[in-house]
């Protein structure tokens, strides 16, 4: 066996402390604002939550049989992912994806813990495989024929910033557009007091690597010194009262809904912030 020689490394970029990604597509869903146009109108104060809006995401990307059986988080995540890909005019089949959720499928966690406490041998095999944090990534890649890498991440109360950073890093390092989806669904049962999330909310972006001239664009910079976290607009703060993921996502969506360039700061880890310049 000859010695192994590493001669032709890819060029190393150790200088980058800023990451820029172009926003190619946006998806959004919460009850009463089931897509980006209605969410944008809500954030601009042009309309309120629609009273007649459907109670669950349409999830048209899923085959009908899956759509009937799939848990709420899968419906939500695939709905916002499909919206973002459609706006970006990107075929999902080739897009690496990062699905971020604070808690994943809370109703299934409640079902699992409840069933295990009384009749563990009666646990549903389907509910078990739907309980994995990457269930939406699994259903999404199956439905869209996506064979690229897929990930499912969490960062508790900083899930949104940590997940967005992961997706932007993937786009920049691999020089590829990336689908990023952040979502949570409501808790049920005894978990509600602990996990607290009472409202389903999701947003998705298709991010593409870019230079600092492209628009619309987010430029991310890591910051390790304290700064004020950008709050969600007061008019929609009630949507986010029990979930930081929703608050952080709404802060970014509000910036993207505006017509002017703006800056915001969101947390990405304990003691680590993401400064974002939004150029629209």
């Amino acid at each position, binding site marked *: 066996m000859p*010695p*192994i020689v*590493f001669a*032709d*490394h*890819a060029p190393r*970029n150790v200088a980058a402390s800023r*990451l820029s990604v172009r926003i190619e597509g946006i998806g959004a869903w919460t009850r009463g604002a089931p897509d980006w146009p209605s969410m944008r109108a809500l954030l601009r104060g042009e309309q309120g939550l629609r009273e007649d809006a459907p109670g669950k995401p349409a999830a048209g990307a899923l085959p009908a049989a899956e759509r009937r059986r799939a848990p709420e988080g899968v419906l939500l995540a695939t709905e916002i992912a499909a919206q973002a890909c459609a706006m970006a005019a990107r075929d999902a089949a080739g897009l690496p994806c990062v699905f971020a959720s*604070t*808690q*994943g499928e809370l109703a299934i*966690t409640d079902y*699992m*813990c409840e069933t*295990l*406490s009384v009749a*563990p*041998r009666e*646990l*549903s*095999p389907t509910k*078990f495989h739907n*309980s*994995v*944090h*990457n*269930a939406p990534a*699994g*259903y999404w*890649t*199956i439905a*869209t024929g*996506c*064979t*690229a*890498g*897929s*990930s*499912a*991440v*969490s*960062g*508790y109360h900083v899930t949104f910033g*940590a*997940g967005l*950073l*992961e997706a932007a890093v993937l786009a920049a390092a691999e020089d590829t557009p990336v689908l990023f989806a952040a979502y949570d669904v409501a808790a049920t049962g*005894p*978990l509600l*007091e*602990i*996990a*607290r999330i009472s409202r389903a909310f999701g947003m998705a972006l298709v991010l593409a690597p870019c230079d600092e001239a492209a628009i619309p664009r987010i430029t991310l910079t*890591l910051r*390790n010194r304290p700064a004020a976290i950008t709050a969600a607009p007061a008019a929609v703060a009630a949507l986010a009262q029990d979930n930081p993921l929703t608050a952080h996502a709404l802060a970014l969506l509000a910036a993207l809904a505006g017509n002017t360039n703006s800056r915001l700061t969101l947390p*990405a*880890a*304990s*003691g*680590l912030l993401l400064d974002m310049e939004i150029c629209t």
Partner: protein
Amino acid sequence: MPQRIPPLAVTACSATSALGRGVAAHAQALRAGRGGLRVNDFSSATLACFIGRAEGVENAPLPQAFAHWECRNNRLAWLGLQQDGLLAAVERVIERHGADRVGLILGTSTASIGASEEAYRRLDDGHFPEDLARPAIHTPHSLAAFVAEATGIGGPALTISTACSSSAKVFASAERMMRLGLIDAALVGGVDTLCDSVLFGFNALELVSSQPCRPFDVRRNGISIGEAAAFAVLERIEAAPRALRLIGYGESSDAHHMSTPHPQARGARAALDQALARAGLEPDAVDYINLHGTATIKNDEMEALLLPEFPRASRASSTKGFTGHTLGAAGALEAVFALLAIEHGFIPPTLHCEQPFEGPHPWLALEPHEQRVNIALSNSFGFGGNNACLAFARAEA
């Protein structure tokens, strides 16, 4: 195919599982063909199977300062962090680069769901009992949040939870952050612990064997579930030119089925091919492949289809018969096994495989043997068709 990546130095690693605490205990057991599976004495109701249970977790409470993180998964993480000089290695990289220049990326599938299960068993008038009413442990990020606090790492911190590929993918995420210059070092790893969710969940899918699992054996009939904590510290090679190296990785999706692998190994092959491309290697350079090898009928049948890409001199084995399938920790644990094979020059055997089926037989290591290993791969495949492959190498001569 992806471009070649600059290799990273693995400047520390550790493993804790049913084989013991620390890499030395693991190297000894793997070289001797001495497994760690035992009759299930864990689940809250009886379930006739074998498990890979880490010894003494019950008697190893967290230090008082971390009592708010108490749960089996974080205990096992803490035990793991104390092996093999790992905490000292983390302190060293924090001192060298600054806490905010060190990243923390951990994989887990169970996280501390065992604590949530316990809360439901002991509900107090419909509420979590007081000692378990700690929201930060009832979430997938419990492990990484605890480890961030326990180590003082202040850079990006992320939980990857993609079932049984979780803690393989952490190496890829860390490499990307380092290549972009966002961090200078990373602690990566995975911790999963035994709990009713996985024991009765895999049982419901009829994927749990009543015997110690027999990867690649014609009579294999399912997995044995295990638990483990495994970690590695990654730095640029200038920091440790002689250290073993992460040289490649691949990540893919099957786009096939939630709980069954693609029958032609499409996703697994894509992950493998990407790992070799990032490493700049052809299959004939590979000395050892640590297979996912869960001992389910379908995984092993699928994974065996990859082996004809390799020359007959390449050796392959599944170590699940030693540790059980440690699920979200398996990627990191078996990455450590690949590193041990290189460092100590041995091929772990496929424990409990007595009658291998025909396809993989020429490549399968059935008995432990000593052999120089320069390049080793590790496969990890999870629910949702989520695949990862890692490539490690000895430092160049």
